[in-house]
């Protein structure tokens, strides 16, 4: 059973986003990936849902299959930087981009 948590930390003008994925079940979970990307992060406008920023935009990834094995009680963490978040409210979502489970977490951030 995978649970995802999203946390944010301000870093000067930028916002650090961390996606944590924990295995709260009794059995190890194998996560399969199609390329080097492990997580995706997206920021959208609270009202319109319009996409403001996507971490993978402007990036390419090594085209090699990958596996992460998450034992019971363990967690994986992925951290990226959102370089220029706007003032006010934004909706932020982090998602593991594995082939099967794709656990995700969202939050609203208020910045000034």
């Amino acid at each position, binding site marked *: 059973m995978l649970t995802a948590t999203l946390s944010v930390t301000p870093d000067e003008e930028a916002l650090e986003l961390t996606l944590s994925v924990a295995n709260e079940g009794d059995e190890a979970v194998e996560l399969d990936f199609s390329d*080097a990307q492990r997580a995706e992060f997206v920021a959208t406008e609270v009202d319109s849902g319009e996409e403001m920023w996507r971490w993978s935009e402007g990036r390419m990834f090594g085209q090699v299959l990958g596996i992460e094995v998450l034992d019971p009680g363990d967690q994986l963490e992925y951290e990226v930087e959102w370089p220029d978040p706007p003032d006010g409210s934004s909706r932020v979502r982090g998602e593991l981009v594995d082939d099967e489970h794709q656990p995700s977490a969202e939050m609203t951030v208020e910045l000034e």
Partner: protein
Amino acid sequence: MLDNSHGTDRRTVLQTIGGAVGVAGLSGVASAADGTVEVNVGYSAEGGRQAALGAAMDVEREFAFDALTITVSEEAAARLSAREDVRYVEENGTYEALGESLPWGIDRTDSDVAHANGETGNGADIAIIDTGIDDDHPDLQANLADPSVDSNHKAYESCKGPNCNYPWSDDNDHGSHCSGIANGVDNTEGVIGVSTQANLHALKALDKRGSGTYSNIASAVQYTADQGWDVASMSLGGSSSSQTLKDACQYAYNNGVLIVAAAGNDGPCSDCVGYPAKYSTVMAISATSCGDTLASFSSTGPEIEIAAPGENVYSTIIGGYDTFDGTSMACPHVSGAGAQLMANGYTNADARKQLKDTAENIGLASNESGAGLLDTAAAFGLSSSDDGAGTGPNC
């Protein structure tokens, strides 16, 4: 992000390899003339330990984990083995340095036939646009362009972690793996590349997590052209196009660079080749498996030009060897072959055409394997009836 771990302890991979050339990993110990053997005995209770000690003519070692190494007669070894409180009795074999093994993809593409006919890629320059290259790897070092010459390698993303002799050193494994496929050193150990004596240039446009920006990748492509190098090998991709990268590829192609890229791992899917493979200036390479099937993960589409081995590919990683899957692995097979041709004076366009004209028909559709499976020997007009997949790693 964590490194690209693959669920297998990489150090144990060495134990499962049977070499097609050279000495395999584990050799049994023959009995001494008097019928004694040296064995490792694991026990599950004190009774087992006492039995082993009682039978031993000599006790070499007692471990902290309920095992010991002893010399016993063969019959005693068999009796111990039958005991309930003895978990195992194994011959104390030796691990010898592995000889050089022939990865199945090198064999299947008849690259070894090309080698036997003196084709080495000597004089060609291959830019590995990737996570860097492990600069002191025994199976790569001799083929690296001189690291003391600054212009030979570049770091668009700086190496991070404990293995960074240079900012362009590999901090992920991916770049080293691709380098070994394209141009692993032909020596008495490890693997061998499609090409064996070309010059490898690390253009580290991918970071420790295996991702890179359009701008850095485009810059690396331009740099390859500006340096006058022959091949740009891009085992990378994405589903969106970048005009900057497209322009860089056009520039490089106009300036004589053979550009080769992984088609993508979105399979099973149709018409799903990623970028930059999808650009007309770039050779899009799909991936096959050991039995000449299309690898299930391989992207397909009209842009596929040829296919190359991409599943269960054994090659160099930081400080060792490992087996990876991906169109990332297929791409450098073609890069190495392209370098071989260009070392013989082919232009980029002629090399591209020759590789396609001589590809082997393996019965896949053209949107799966383009002109067919890479055939390095046929590209040189050499007999490719060898075609073995061999008994090399993973096939």
